[in-house]
């Protein structure tokens, strides 16, 4: 594969060329896009100067309303106005809490649930893509050009299915995903803990619908996640829901219509927010049914009714600390992230548990997007080599295989540093057996039925042998995005067995392709032109990198090898001027393949010099 990746790590081959890269926080309640401008991370705003984009999508008969424009539709057309879609990402119906209080028409489909809207059946991936598309356009308008790529954040405790769904949504929105970045890690970067601080920090991230707790160790510009834990179904929405239930109880009203339920939920959120600054708040509204709600909520009432939720946040805190082998006293600082951490009783509980006041000096709504922008800037190659940091993140939940009796055998343990791969050997139990099936699950529980089913796959093409003679080595690999891939090899014969992975949740590549074809991107103009543009960017990248690699380490090639590569470079240059995306893509792949071996040699040289050179002392 292409060489280039090895040479000047993190440095652009053309340092003067600034690449347009953004960080996107795709939140349950609000979403943001940020970028690094003149060395400073800033959130990009809409025409009215607003940074937050409410994560709301309203499907009308012929068009879509989004963000602030869809606010009113929450009450006037609740069924077609999707709020908190993040809670549905990579989830089936049975996984979603309080579904009875939601106004939508759900469809249970294999894999992820879907929602029936005025524009037909929509998956959470498609709905999220609408939000991402608006943010992409905002960024392109603001930065004046096409984006090189984006870092999209996800809750650290998102499993493989939820991560896949997020990445699919970004691809559907026309974004090149540089990395899926864990939200607490992004926040740590934004806090600029790298230069000024060393030691162990905890990031307490309570968003609209998800909760994460990450423990990070900072040393010499390295952010190492020691452990992460969380609850992907716990957030500010649940506090709203408690208030909503409390109001239904106390106002003695008939079961509300979908419209009235939405009204009550919005009132509950307003009350919650008011209680952050005031000792009591009125819960007062007139319903469509003619009924009146006229209540007063005190802080004490609110704290009392939500105490179990606050206590629930401490469970992941304790688990993460135990996994990291630390006690609360070992933590030097606690960073608060997410709008829900504004609630005074959350701050007090955290302060009591860790024995110190938490850090709240950055806007908890923006800190994740800002950190993502900084990482996007680094990943795009815009930073100088002497101004780099390194993020070493982990897999949040163990990966396992189903074994006899419905038990999960752990293959990759939680909190393993990414990327990580583990191989396991299996054998056949029947003479002449040519296929085997596997079931991959994610989670900590012993029973497969208590874990999340990620994929089932069949291994085919095993050479027929006596029972127990075949040695099948299955490798599970989780990349830096936290996404799983599987490969298999019959080791006694060297036959590569083919694997068909059928995701239990998430979309297959074919489904994504079909969605893209179905004209969702029509608004962006000609598909073919876009494909060509993308291929040109890709071709330019590889040409640029090749030239640089040859200049730096050309001595690793003999004359024949050099001539062959030079010829392919010249060919690709010519293709770049043409108009055929397919041929161009083929040219890119050919050059990439032809330079794989060169890349391997360069990698070895780099690794050796990393240890024999001065790098260790410098770090």
């Amino acid at each position: 594969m292409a060489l280039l990746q090895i040479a000047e790590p993190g440095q652009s081959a053309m340092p003067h060329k600034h690449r347009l890269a953004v960080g996107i926080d795709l939140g349950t309640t609000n979403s943001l896009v940020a970028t690094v401008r003149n060395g400073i991370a800033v959130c990009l705003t809409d025409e009215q100067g607003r940074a937050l984009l409410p994560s709301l999508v309203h499907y009308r008969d012929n068009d879509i309303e989004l963000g602030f424009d869809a606010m009113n539709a929450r009450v006037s057309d609740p069924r077609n106005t999707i709020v908190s879609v993040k809670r549905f990402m990579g989830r089936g119906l049975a996984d979603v809490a309080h579904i009875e209080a939601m106004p939508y028409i759900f469809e249970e489909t294999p894999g992820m649930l879907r929602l029936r809207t005025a524009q037909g059946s929509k998956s959470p991936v498609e709905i999220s893509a609408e939000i991402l598309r608006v943010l992409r356009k905002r960024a392109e308008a603001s930065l004046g050009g096409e984006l090189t790529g984006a870092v999209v954040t996800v809750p650290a405790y998102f499993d493989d299915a939820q991560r896949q769904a997020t990445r699919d949504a970004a691809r559907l929105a026309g974004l090149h995903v540089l990395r899926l970045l864990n939200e607490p890690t992004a926040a740590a970067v934004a806090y600029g803990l790298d230069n000024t601080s060393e030691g162990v920090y905890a990031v307490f991230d309570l968003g609209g619908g998800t909760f994460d707790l990450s423990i990070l160790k900072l040393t010499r510009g390295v952010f190492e996640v020691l452990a992460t834990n969380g609850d992907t179904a716990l957030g500010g929405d649940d506090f709203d829901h408690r208030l909503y239930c409390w109001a239904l109880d106390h106002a003695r009203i008939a079961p509300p219509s979908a419209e009235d339920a939405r009204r009550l939920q919005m009132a509950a959120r307003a009350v919650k927010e008011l209680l952050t600054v005031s000792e009591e708040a009125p819960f007062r509204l007139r319903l469509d049914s003619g009924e009146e709600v006229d209540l007063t909520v005190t802080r004490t009432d609110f704290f009392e009714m939500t105490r179990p939720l606050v206590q629930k946040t401490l469970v992941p805190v304790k688990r993460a600390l135990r996994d990291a082998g630390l006690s609360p006293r070992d933590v030097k600082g606690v960073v608060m992230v997410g709008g829900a951490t504004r609630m005074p009783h959350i701050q007090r509980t955290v302060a009591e548990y860790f024995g110190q006041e938490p850090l709240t000096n950055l806007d908890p709504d923006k800190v994740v997007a800002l950190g993502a922008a900084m990482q996007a800037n680094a990943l795009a190659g815009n930073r100088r080599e002497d101004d780099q940091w390194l993020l070493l993140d982990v897999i949040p939940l163990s990966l396992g295989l189903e074994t006899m009796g419905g038990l999960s055998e752990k293959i990759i343990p939680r909190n393993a540093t990414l990327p990580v791969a583990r191989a396991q050997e299996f054998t056949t139990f029947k003479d002449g057996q040519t296929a085997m099936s596997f079931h991959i699950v994610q989670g900590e529980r012993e029973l497969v039925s208590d874990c999340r089913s990620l994929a089932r796959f069949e291994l085919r093409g095993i050479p027929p042998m006596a029972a127990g003679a075949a040695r099948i080595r299955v490798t599970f690999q989780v990349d830096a995005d936290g996404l799983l891939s599987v490969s298999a090899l019959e080791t006694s014969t060297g036959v590569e067995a083919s694997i068909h992975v059928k995701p239990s949740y998430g979309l297959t590549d074919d489904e994504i392709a079909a969605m893209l074809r179905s004209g969702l991107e029509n608004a962006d103009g000609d598909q073919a032109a876009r494909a060509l543009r993308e291929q040109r960017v890709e071709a330019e990248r590889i040409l640029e990198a090749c030239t640089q690699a040859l200049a730096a380490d050309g001595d690793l090639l003999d004359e024949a090898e050099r001539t062959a590569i030079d010829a392919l470079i010249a060919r690709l240059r010519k293709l770049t001027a043409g108009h055929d995306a397919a041929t161009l893509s083929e040219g890119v792949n050919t050059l990439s393949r032809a330079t794989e071996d060169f890349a391997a040699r360069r990698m070895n040289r780099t690794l050796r010099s990393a240890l024999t050179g001065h790098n260790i002392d410098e770090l």
Partner: protein
Amino acid sequence: MSVDLSLDYFALFGLPYRFRLDEEALDRAWHALQAEVHPDRHAHLPDSGQRGAIAGALRVNEAYAVLKKPVTRARCLLELAGVSQDAVNARVPSPECLFEQLEWREAVEEARKANDIDALEQFALRLQIQTDGIITYLAEQLDGRRDLEGAADTVQRLTFIDKLRLEIDNALAAFDNYN
């Protein structure tokens, strides 16, 4: 494509072939290597190239995980000295060792059934102290006397204990679910 696979983990990290570990040196070498091979450093390059670059990062992380944990580090040293993993696993434990295992297992099972969190935590602590002692002894066997056979027995004993600790951890984690 891959990192130089002929380098063993100790050589890759530039560490001496010893069981006693300078943890700071391990972390420093890990960070230095990852600074070169981590996929984030290559994200601005074509997709095709990134897939190749990941092999180096995988190898470095695998080495780090093995070197960091005493049991796997010891197994790695034994393997380099010609005592294979299979040979370690095939050692026949002494009756005392087996008896100790049985006793511990019963104690954990009892505490688990009685939902006795305190007892489990106490037991985990005792096991930790026991482990610390065994590790000191193992260091003497590997770095001092070069008693490879004895070290293989000790490694096997540590492997048992590790499994037991995992079970205790799982049991404790299950309790948290119902808090």
